[in-house]
């Protein structure tokens, strides 16, 4: 039996070290890599299901073409035919419009290995084109963290095990970051208190010593309320405030004059004695970790929420700031050149730059493009017709597109609406190198098996397609097709990366994943200055505690939350029978209050609707949901994101998608509704 080393490439905090066990060229088993210090030889349920992922009967085997689009009339074609069809279109559009701006892509996080930036590299190599910018997931929070701290924190998540208290705001690691739970529970076993603040009684909340349920999106009021109590009872760190904050007086005045504890309680739904309980945690002169989840920033007040929580976390705990840690994310990729992403293409005589579109409003913005319009769209590592917002905009964009190509392992909702679908390789079938957006480990991903049927990696597709273009039109692309995956990986391991991870060559990574060294400077250095919460650095200063009810809120009184579920990541893993058997029917969780108001019983077929559309689902009544919250899992046959559509954001490329600012109504299913 052969054993290979891998990194799980999913859009997940854990980016686990993984081993594959190969018999006669077939993957027969996986295990965690015991040399990986974060996942420590274990995987999650999804990770343990990888044999079913690789040899799944629904996996795409060959390039296929559908005529007409959306008909389901698929025909198998050869890679040659696929490349010819794509090259024809790119070249024809180039001739028609005099540039490649009519060609573009939409790509995100289906595989976060560094070599999957081949998609960007491929498009860069043909000169100016149309590309998405921004990040639907976590950028609002990242901006807020940088505003507060001046930089991203670099605390190792393993250190949570040494804390005396861990306060989790809006994260659910029991579902989304399973391997962090051991560090949290290790601390808890040593006597630490685990506090979870969330609108949902999550699996993490169930594990907590103290669970505090909060009205969604109101975290900043809770944080500011507790901060006010800290200040009033003189339990904050005065030395820190004096030496290392930049706007204490302004903040102090704001808290004194603007933060009213009665309003805090009314807005958050949390009583004063619970605020005091949180005060006792944050005033404890012992190490305390605060973890801010991405859920906090999926609404229009996301940046404010995070700024307020940061402020509370840094003010408290009188024994010095080394005892205070705020976790959000780790920008591990910043250490790397990411050569594929940053590949420089040929200069165009007239068009100087690519056209950039905010990824969070891609479809609508792309539809508006003129001179030239967008005509060819390449979709890879993404399933927008399940996971993006505003499907109606996608549907109208697609009508204007002359060619849609999707690269995926499975027939996704997006692939179903494409002209060409190209089969992608799994991470067992390609080489790659991975870092995490949470922990500090660097892992190599070896190629362990031949690609499944005719599947290819994104990099391989880029190499071959660009070569094909150059055969037809010499010099069209400057993509270095001759370069092998290992060459790209070697180039990522720059001298500074090698120093940071204490490696000499790629061989060291083949031996073991490596931990990033800690830099000398940390938050206690005197140069560090912290920016306390202030209204001027908030996204929407007009936010009012006593919002007047709008017509929309009257007609669609329920807030829709769509968090991750345990056995999927977004729309991935749906086809694994070990994980998601019989999960065909969408389930909607509603409160007892909502059920009573609408006359809905457990198990009833219901309809969830708003102006964007409707979906049918089976009702599950929860005793623990806030009255006006409705919870639906992502993806599935009729994805819930059909009901999510948002106005363009003010800072293109600088905010996450406000997925949780969606309003819906619910009623019992009636055939005549349909």
């Amino acid at each position, binding site marked *: 039996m052969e054993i290979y080393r891998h990194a799980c490439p999913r859009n997940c905090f854990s980016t686990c070290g993984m081993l594959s066990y190969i018999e006669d060229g077939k993957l027969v088993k996986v295990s965690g890599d015991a040399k990986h210090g974060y996942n420590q030889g274990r995987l999650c*349920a999804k990770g343990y299901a990888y044999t079913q992922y690789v040899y799944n009967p629904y996996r795409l085997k060959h390039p296929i073409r559908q005529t007409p689009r959306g008909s389901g009339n698929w025909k198998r074609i050869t890679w040659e035919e696929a490349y010819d069809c794509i090259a024809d279109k790119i070249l024809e559009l180039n001739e028609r419009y005099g540039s490649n701006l009519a060609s573009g892509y939409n790509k995100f996080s289906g595989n976060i290995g560094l070599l999957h930036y081949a998609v960007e590299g491929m498009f860069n190599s043909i000169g100016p084109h149309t590309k998405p910018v921004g990040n639907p997931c976590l950028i609002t929070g990242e901006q807020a963290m940088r505003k507060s701290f001046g930089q991203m924190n670099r605390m190792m998540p393993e250190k949570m095990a040494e804390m005396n208290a861990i306060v989790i705001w809006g994260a659910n690691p029991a579902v989304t970051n399973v391997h962090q739970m051991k560090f949290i529970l290790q601390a808890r076993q040593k006597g630490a208190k685990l506090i979870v603040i969330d609108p949902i009684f999550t699996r*993490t909340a169930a594990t907590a010593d103290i*669970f505090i349920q909060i009205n969604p999106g109101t975290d900043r009021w809770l944080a500011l309320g507790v901060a006010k109590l800290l200040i009033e009872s003189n339990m904050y760190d005065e030395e820190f405030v004096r030496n290392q904050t930049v706007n204490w007086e302004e903040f102090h005045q704001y808290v004194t004059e603007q933060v009213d504890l009665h309003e805090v309680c009314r807005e958050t739904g949390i009583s004063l004695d619970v605020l005091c*309980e949180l005060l006792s945690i944050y005033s404890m002169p012992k190490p305390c970790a605060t973890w801010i989840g991405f859920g906090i920033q999926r609404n229009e007040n996301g940046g404010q929420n995070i700024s307020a929580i940061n402020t509370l976390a840094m003010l408290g705990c009188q024994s010095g700031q080394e005892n205070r840690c705020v976790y959000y994310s780790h920008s591990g990729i910043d250490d790397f050149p990411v050569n594929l992403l940053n590949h420089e293409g040929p200069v165009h005589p007239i068009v100087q730059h690519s056209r950039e579109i905010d990824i969070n409003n891609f479809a609508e913005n792309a539809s508006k493009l003129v001179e030239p319009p967008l005509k060819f769209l390449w979709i890879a590592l993404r399933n927008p017709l399940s996971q993006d917002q505003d499907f109606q905009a996608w549907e109208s964009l697609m009508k204007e597109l002359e060619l849609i190509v999707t690269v995926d392992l499975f027939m996704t909702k997006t692939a179903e609406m494409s002209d060409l679908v190209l089969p992608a390789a799994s991470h067992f079938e390609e080489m790659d190198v991975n870092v995490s957006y949470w922990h500090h480990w660097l892992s190599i991903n070896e190629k362990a098996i031949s690609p499944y049927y005719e599947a290819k990696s994104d990099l391989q597709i880029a190499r071959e397609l660009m070569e094909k273009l150059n055969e037809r039109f010499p010099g069209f692309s400057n993509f270095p097709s001759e370069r092998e995956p290992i060459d790209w990986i070697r180039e990522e391991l720059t001298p500074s990366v090698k120093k940071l991870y204490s490696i000499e060559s790629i061989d060291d990574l083949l031996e073991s994943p490596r931990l990033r060294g800690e830099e000398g400077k940390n938050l206690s250095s005197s140069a560090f200055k912290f920016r306390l919460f202030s209204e001027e650095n908030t996204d929407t200063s007009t936010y009012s505690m006593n919002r007047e009810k709008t017509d929309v809120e009257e007609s669609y009184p329920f807030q829709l939350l769509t968090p991750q579920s345990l056995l999927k990541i977004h729309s991935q893993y749906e086809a694994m029978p070990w994980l998601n058997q019989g999960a065909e029917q969408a389930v909607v969780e509603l409160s007892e209050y909502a059920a009573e108001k609408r006359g809905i019983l457990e198990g009833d077929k219901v309809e969830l609707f708003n102006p964007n559309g409707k979906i049918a689902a089976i009702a599950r009544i929860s005793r623990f949901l806030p009255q006006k919250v409705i919870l639906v899992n992502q993806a599935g046959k009729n994805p819930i994101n059909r009901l999510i559509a948002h106005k363009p954001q003010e800072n293109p490329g600088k905010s996450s998608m406000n997925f949780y600012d969606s309003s819906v109504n619910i009623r019992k299913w009636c055939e005549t509704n349909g």
Partner: protein
Amino acid sequence: MRQMVKQMGFVFNVDLCFGCMACEIACRNENQTDSTVRWRKVSRLTDDTFLSVSCNHCNSPECFRVCPENAFTKRGDGIVQINSDLCTGCGLCIEACPYGAPQYDPVTQKASKCQMCYPRQDRGLPPACVESCSTEALTFVDLNTFCDKKIVGSIPGFPDTRLTNPSIAFYPATERKRYFLK
């Protein structure tokens, strides 16, 4: 039943389990069982606790008692095995087991169940489920020698243990505070 030299058994710490199901799928990864066959099952025990349970390799296994083919044996280390060559798939063990341990396998048309990864144990490795448990909520010990005052023989929600004397011990849940919205 005679006293075994050893009695390997699972110890389940309710406080450390958050229902991630890694153990259940790690079992499938190791044993490549059919999608309908669940040798280990994770379920919700109460509103805030979970239970992960497989065959408990009982001291007085009902499967052993009811099987007309005498397909079950108990090894010296206490592991209850099923000999699939002898199994006719009659399903009596499936009905008799209080823990739902034996599973009907539609592919082989026989009963099958957790064998505590004895091939792994024989090589000095822990069962796959135990290895996969990131918080060590699920461990395994020799219950004949294991001693900890904090453990209990059963927890609320677990089936009656009197009939079969299962080889499982528990650390019960500690108290937790809940502040729900009114």
